[in-house]
């Protein structure tokens, strides 16, 4: 078993929480893991990415090679495309469709969506809207994780366990909101795959 995953977004959007939950679930499943993340200057509103590698065999590189990623999981639509060189031929692109616009030259939204939909293996969902509709507007990142969950080859229960471990110290309410969010994302993919 091997899953190479690029997590993408803008600094502050919560991709490291997604990484932490998948990572915890992978470790709890007895798998090897390497996860490279971005700290420092780029975290201030710039593009950020994390290379997350899970395998049942030891992993060498902390970085995923070009064309090696099984999944790109992005919390922002334009950011999902920045890492296309990493996506493998049969890889899946899973992205939030809600644009985060903090630059003057953000591309035309319709063109952006057209480009995303030109990849045959894609899941595009308005995770911000879904998070709002279930009453946990701050759990957008967990909705995206839920949408990606069926591609991870990790048991859904382990992911739930990961959420309980990572958000546990923030209290039961936050854990529940995130559990609801991951479930909503998963249901979206099951209905729209």
């Amino acid at each position, binding site marked *: 078993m091997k899953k190479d995953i690029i997590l993408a977004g803008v600094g502050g959007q919560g991709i490291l929480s997604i990484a932490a939950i998948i990572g915890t679930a992978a470790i709890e499943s007895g798998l090897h893991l390497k996860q*490279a993340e971005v*700290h420092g200057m780029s*975290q201030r509103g710039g*593009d950020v990415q994390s290379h997350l590698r899970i395998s049942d065999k030891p992993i060498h590189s*902390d970085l995923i090679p070009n064309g090696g990623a099984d999944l790109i999981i992005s919390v922002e639509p334009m950011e999902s495309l920045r890492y296309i*060189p990493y996506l493998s031929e049969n890889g899946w692109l899973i992205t939030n469709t809600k644009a985060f616009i903090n630059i003057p030259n953000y*591309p035309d939204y319709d063109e*952006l969506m057209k480009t995303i939909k030109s990849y045959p293996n894609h899941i595009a969902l308005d995770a911000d809207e879904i998070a709002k509709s279930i009453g946990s507007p701050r759990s957008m990142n967990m909705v995206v994780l839920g949408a990606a969950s069926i591609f991870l080859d990790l048991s859904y229960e382990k992911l739930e366990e990961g959420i309980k471990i990572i958000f546990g110290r923030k209290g039961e309410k936050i854990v529940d909101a995130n559990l609801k969010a991951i479930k909503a994302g998963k249901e979206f993919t099951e209905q729209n795959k």
Partner: protein
Amino acid sequence: MKKLLLLGNEAIGQGALDAGLSGAYGYPGTPSTEIIEYIQRNPEAKERDVHRTWSTNEKTAMESALGMSYVGKRTIVTMKHVGLNVAADAYMNSALTGANGGVIVAVADDPSMHSSQNEQDSRFYAKFALMPAFEPSDQQEAYDMPKLAYEISEKYHLPVMMRLTTRLAHSRAGVVINNVLEENIMHLPEIKDQFMLLPAFARKKYKHLIAVQKDLEMESENSPFNKYIEGIDKSLGIIACGLAYNYLMENYDKCNYPILKIGQYPLPRKQIQNIFNECDEILILEEGMPLVEEMLKGFLGDPKIHGRLDGTLDRDGELNPMKVRKALGLPKLYSKDIPELVSGRPPALCVGCPHTDSYKALTEAMKEYGKGHVFSDIGCYTLGYLSPHNAIDTCVDMGASISMAIGASDAGFFPAIATIGDSTFGHSGITGLLDAVTQKSNVVIVILDNDITAMTGMQDSQINGRIEQVCEGVGVEKEHIRIINPLSRYHEENVKVIKEEIAYNGVSVVIPRRPCIHVFAKKKR
């Protein structure tokens, strides 16, 4: 078997703690910051009361670590590569005083300059100082190395360097944890003059340092972190330093070329000689600058040595699996280009950041003088160079804003403005301010006080709460230390204050004071 999921930096912190650490020193700097942060929040470090507060700068950190070593305790001092320049005086001399309790100088380099002003390679400093160095290839080695590093440090009475680079510093993996060693008992150096560098003593110590080099080389020959891996195809031999080994192995299920994996310096001469004799060509993979390559290639350039110097690999920038693949002559992998419509998204000041309002006021106050007057410094506020702020003109090194403004003013340039953050001012700004006061420079120094070391992720600033007292103590006139509140509703007032201080012929300090929005959010929670 206990296994923890740790960043490379955290693995060093845990490794040092488990090897009997008594005190950690450092100044925050990407990509080194998480070593101390990890030790700071570690429950066992709390229980053992391991020293773990930030220092004012890397030099004071290095010297404090030497003091802890002097009394026989194990210590670690952490910094980013350019921080070692600040600590260099103490660092270079520490190779002569040596260590009593073990000293690890952990330096994190930033090839590709993700968050830095240059990509200098700290292994040159280790070689320069004739100090042993360790370079982990993965998180497990980052954890395992401190133990051996302390043993070597205490065996040869020498500080040792641990060098790592951004990718390992900020990458997580499972790490198997060992038993915990007891901390050293306090004891003074056996040799009374060990830390006495009067020239007569220093000359002896330098001769000794040179003499032990062959022993250090022997340690490297026998090190578990230097490995000769046999291969049947001798047309190429590969020397892979630190992390580069992983990028090599990523490209093979099994590599048929002989490999020399390097994790401990000075270089193991016999093993290098061996791969050199055995193979037709040599490829050197090292993260950062071509240190090993240059040593082997020599000034006249042995044509059998390949790497960054002959273009087999890029001369600059971080390595990755693709660059190494190309250097190995392997076919290109499937990969699609980035769609053209994707635009760049550079980092920016956060929405609501106090620096934005400070820069707005400063820029307006400076309008009549044109561009090019604002010397700045290292921190979040360096982003004020970018649109829409376009507020500053220089960024060189910690503290340079003040001293450069002085120099420009000395040349008759008016107005000369410096902008510097609170933590950077504490780190290296006070000495420049003293120069300004002593020679009555006509400068305005804007100390952007956001209550924290923000860029590196919210570490305490040593000067917190004492900035105006320090300025006054250094000799700035009280009526020219002006505190303003950088909020848009005080904009007109703030512009007026800055204009008044530009008009004053002498040293002025303006302190826009408002907490970083992240500090504010945290306190509210």
